[in-house]
């Protein structure tokens, strides 16, 4: 027979103490044992909490906090990056717009400058032309005057030689006037 059956067979058929009493007797659940076990368990659980799970949990909490802080930091960095990308894109767009505006302004400025220079050139050319015309007119007038004078002198000289007479200044002046009036301007 197996020992367990021997034990059960060996339990004395004492008078029943009720269900709780029978259980207490079979399993030796008496106050001294139970109270001792309670105290022992309380001490064990206190020691385990203080020296076993306390440090480990503190370490895990610390790590969890560090991970949470890291994630928070990562989110902040991602946000900053997104903001930075957005601001960079905005700056690029603004710079592009500005560049286009500058190019348009430069084009306009260049056109105006070209126009101004053209007008200036035209004005200068006209001025040169007017000056040239004036100079030409003056030269023509001068040459005409010299020609008239020379013609008068020649007429007077010719007249003097033909007539054999020395002409006076009045005669010369009169002959010149007549000759010139016939030659015309």
């Amino acid at each position, binding site marked *: 027979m197996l020992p367990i059956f021997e034990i059960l067979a060996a339990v004395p058929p004492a008078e029943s103490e009720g269900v709780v009493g029978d259980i207490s007797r079979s399993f030796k659940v008496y106050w001294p044992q139970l109270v001792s076990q309670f105290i022992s*368990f309380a001490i064990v659980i206190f020691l385990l909490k203080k020296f076993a799970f306390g440090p480990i949990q503190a370490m*895990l909490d610390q790590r969890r906090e560090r991970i949470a802080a890291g994630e928070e930091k990562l989110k902040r960095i991602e946000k900053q990056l997104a903001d930075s990308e957005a601001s960079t894109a905005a700056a690029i767009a603004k710079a592009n717009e500005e560049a286009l505006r500058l190019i348009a302004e430069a084009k306009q400025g260049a056109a105006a400058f070209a126009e101004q220079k053209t007008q200036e050139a035209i004005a200068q050319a006209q001025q040169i032309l007017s000056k040239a015309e004036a100079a030409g007119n003056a030269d023509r007038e001068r040459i005409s005057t010299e020609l008239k004078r020379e013609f008068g002198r020649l007429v007077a000289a010719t007249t003097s030689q033909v007539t054999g007479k020395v002409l006076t200044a009045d005669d010369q002046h009169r002959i010149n006037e007549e000759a010139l009036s016939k030659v015309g301007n």
Partner: protein
Amino acid sequence: MRSLATILSFWLLCLASAFGAEGGHDHLPLHAEELMKIGPLVVTNSMVMVWIVAAFVILIAQLATRNMKLIPSGLQNGVEWLIEGLYNFLEGILGAALVKKTFWFFATIFILILFTNWFGLLPGVGTVGIKLEGSGVDQHDIFRPFLRGGNADLNMTVAMSVTFAVLWFYWAIRENSLKGFFAHIFAPKGKFVGFILVPMILVFGFVGVLEVISILFRPVALSFRLYGNVYAGESILENIMLLFGTGNLGEWFGWIPVIPFYFLELLVGLIQALVFMLLTSVFLKLICDHGDHDHGDHGH
């Protein structure tokens, strides 16, 4: 080298166990046995086992946290894996807020039960002890082992269950308030108005009485379930050893048929630790579940 030392230690333990057993190991009693008395307090062999397990767990925890590194490795990694896994598992049951307050208890219960169950399987437990002699010695109990499986003592499992019951009341009242606690048990769940409210109050009042009976029986069920499973496992191992350990062949090879049962007991030790922790955490979650409580309040 480390494996060699481990194997050598194991065989030395077996040898010590064998020598101890030779003295007169009689049977596995239903209860733990008294080793000594400190004043009115009794020190039993199961209690000594629990102290050894607690010392072992503390030692491991101290070694693991002695030189902590940011990137864990070795023992620190293993301990962190176990504790973090437990924490996440319990967080899934209890919720983030409740697990912070109660993790220490459930983790202690789980680790303590698990290692106490497994330590109870080591050679020497229940076999190394003293032979009692003298006229007053019961002939059915002539051997007093120094160690016994911690949970193969109903006093130990009752102590754990009753401690949980006390803490359960404390946590439940703290989470719900005293009024909320009673409303949680007795108040109708759901929205009832008008005439239907009266029968609902009666029905839920009766359900509440049943709930109270269930709450009172929880420590009994918890303690007997754990004790029964662990004691049954140890009895099986002992009886198989005795059954096959007789005769010339049995003396040398009687340990072979027990091996599958050792693996079974390793599994049972884990399952029982898990069951105890799961049940206690679920009991706590049920009373602290504010979703049901709110419905109950609205029902009023």
